[in-house]
């Protein structure tokens, strides 16, 4: 009986034997119920204590991410402002030639939208799919406010021939439903053809898939380099006498505490063509004055600067795990005849895996979302997907597109986390 070890349960059992009924408190209530009530109260109090944190996380983390994800597939810029035409699209299947009723609906919606001054929003939404149409909407909007006479097809075509474009009508049909997968398609370098089928965009417009692959490849590479560089340092930190390891620790932590921007700009000073490293190489005669190395404003610059910035995130978890490894295991292995390599490979290294897992995951996930460093030192070939997200947030103001790209990035990271959990086990992660 599980309760046998619980003193309260034992008393209850004995007591119930004496009274022949439930044990009661001094004021006569059943003890079980009183206990449950007091436990419930304690739980509620504990919950109230964490409530501010929960609210904080909800408000600052879950809600914005939720809204962002919603933006990636929900955009009612067209459907909310063009209700009649949206209704016509809903009533007529794809492939129906727009009849006079459709043109009338379009004219009515354009007039209403121009009156309400929402035509800019409508045009911007269609402009995402058919470049160059924003001004078609706004300029037509200015004209229809003066009034349109039926037949509406002729009247609108009279204002601008572009209204007859099948591509425009196809885009308007897509936008007539607020829920759309088009932004995800665009984020994968795909688009919808006029007949609704999915196709790849022209080769010279393709950019996102390549950037996703580059981002993941560079992040992997940087994770690998930080491992190669960080492992010996962490080992040194963990095994040196305290006084000297403290000094070394400061050397690791000092850059870690320095601002990201400062460290990135210092790399710019070091690496540029007239920079410190090139000057030294020229002075040593390794390279000629004209053959200065291009180490920045390209992928090399991104890799160097990001590796340096992310190195502490590899060293610190490794160090914290290595400190707890008992050195007598390796000594025991050696005394039983293992070579130092075997002892390292089969005894020491496996014990560092929890730290390595944590470090690798940290570095990789941070690298995937890196933005400032590639923006400053990446040039054209060192750009990552987050630079594209930032551009859509601030430059083109296509937040739906930014949200779709960010959602794909988030999904990829979650997938990676899941794979890691299946292969290594997330319980093996040790952060410090």
């Amino acid at each position, binding site marked *: 009986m599980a309760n046998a070890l619980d003193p309260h349960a034992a008393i209850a059992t004995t007591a119930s034997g004496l009274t022949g009924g439930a044990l009661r408190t001094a004021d006569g209530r059943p003890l079980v119920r009183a206990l449950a009530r007091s436990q419930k109260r304690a739980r509620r109090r504990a919950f109230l204590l964490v409530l501010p944190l929960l609210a904080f996380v909800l408000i600052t983390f879950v809600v914005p991410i939720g809204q962002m994800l919603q933006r990636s597939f929900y955009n009612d810029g067209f459907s909310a402002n063009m209700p009649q035409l949206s209704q016509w699209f809903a009533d007529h299947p794809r492939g129906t030639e727009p009849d006079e009723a459709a043109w009338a609906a379009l004219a009515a919606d354009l007039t209403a939208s121009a009156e309400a*001054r*929402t035509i800019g929003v409508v045009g911007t939404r269609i402009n995402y799919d058919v470049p160059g149409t924003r001004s078609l909407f706004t300029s037509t909007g200015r004209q229809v406010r003066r009034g349109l006479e039926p037949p509406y097809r002729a009247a609108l075509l009279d204002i601008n021939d572009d209204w007859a474009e099948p591509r425009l009508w196809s885009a308007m049909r897509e936008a007539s439903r607020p829920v759309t997968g088009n932004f995800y398609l665009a984020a994968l370098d795909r688009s919808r053809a006029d007949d609704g089928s999915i196709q790849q965009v022209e080769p*010279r417009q393709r*950019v996102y898939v390549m950037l996703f692959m580059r981002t993941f490849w560079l992040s992997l590479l940087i994770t690998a380099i930080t491992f190669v560089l960080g492992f010996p340092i962490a080992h040194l930190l963990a095994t040196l006498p305290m006084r000297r390891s403290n000094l070394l620790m400061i050397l690791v932590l000092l850059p870690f505490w320095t601002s990201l921007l400062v460290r990135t700009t210092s790399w710019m000073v070091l690496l540029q063509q007239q920079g410190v490293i090139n000057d030294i190489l020229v002075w040593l005669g390794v390279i000629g004055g004209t053959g200065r190395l291009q180490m920045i*404003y390209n992928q090399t610059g991104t890799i160097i600067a990001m590796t340096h910035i992310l190195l502490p995130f590899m060293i610190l978890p490794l160090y914290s795990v290595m400190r707890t490894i008992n050195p007598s295991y390796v000594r025991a292995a050696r005394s039983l005849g293992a070579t130092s390599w075997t002892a390292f490979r089969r005894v020491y290294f496996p014990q560092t895996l929890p730290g390595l897992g944590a470090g690798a995951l940290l570095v990789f996930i941070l690298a995937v979302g890196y933005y400032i460093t590639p*923006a400053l030192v990446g040039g054209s070939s060192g750009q990552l997907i987050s630079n594209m997200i930032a551009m859509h947030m601030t430059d083109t103001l296509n937040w739906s597109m930014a949200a779709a790209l960010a959602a794909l990035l988030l999904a990829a990271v979650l997938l990676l986390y899941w794979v890691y959990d299946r292969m290594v086990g997330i319980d093996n992660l040790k952060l410090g």
Partner: protein
Amino acid sequence: MTRRLIAGAALALLAAGAAAAQDGQIAITTYGGAFGEALNESLVKPFTQETGIGATMIDNDDPPAKLKAEVEAGNVTSAIYDVEQSDVIALCDEGLIEPIDPTILQAGADGSAAADDYLPQALHDCATAIMVWSTVIAYDTEAFPDATPATVADFFDLEKFPGKRGIIKRPKYALEFALLGDGVAPDQVYEVLSTPEGVDRAFAKLDTIKDQVVWWEAGAQAPQLLADKEVAMTLAYNGRIFDAIVGESKPFAFVWDGANLDMDYWVVPRGAPDMEAAMEFIAYASNPQRQADLSKYIAYGPPRKSAAASVGTYKDGATDMKPYLPTTPENAEKALVNDAGFWADHGSELTERFNSWLAGS
């Protein structure tokens, strides 16, 4: 007792607010900094002196966002906002700013009508331009001892002018500039750029210098790249290069050929509390002499042609500003006026193509 005090204080504040509105007290939101200060000295202070309408300057990092939030919340605090060209288009399309009657604007210094005197695109249904800034070619005079670059074509001529080139990492500027370098006339650039062949032509021109380009993103990077000798020639914002030349005595110089003119605008939010005073301010700000006075404090030019003649010296009293302003007739001759409408239509498409082109090295 306390409650009565608070109520009394609130009433007094309300009354003061109402009185201020009656006296015509307006608030002006700008990007602030050196530009806000220059506006205050050259325009806002004289305005208050002459009209008796008090004006408060408010600094904001992102005036269009503040304007949008205030109008949508129905609580507009500033009667006047300073916004950039691309924002004017979006705000006006969305009905967030008031139309401005062009007849309130003052006549030019030479008596010409405002509509003829303002630069192309300086007058908009909902806005009037404040000043003109530009993106120009700047170079290190020490990099080319034998020759002086004078045209956009020289920027693309790596043989005559060897050395790295700095270009802002955006299709805007880069593509327009490439077409100018390929011999397209400034007034033809947007026409060419709106055709697929024109876009190909621009990229083909950029291809010729692609491996020599350092792409920059923040305005401060351009003078820094020049000072570090990382590039020999770069596109740069004219105000920054002016500061480097006059303030820091750097050996830099401009090429005005192919300068890309852009403007900031005054707008009045929908439902502004002091509409009349706001319009009075905008009319006052159209005074050519006042516009020329701005150049005394900062290297931006007046948005109307007839004001250029009145431009004097910098606030140090010694530097003649004419050679440094994008609007001085000799400088503006071959300039391109940036078309925000074109970029609102084609920006995302060209940005994608540009990024794809950049990445495919």
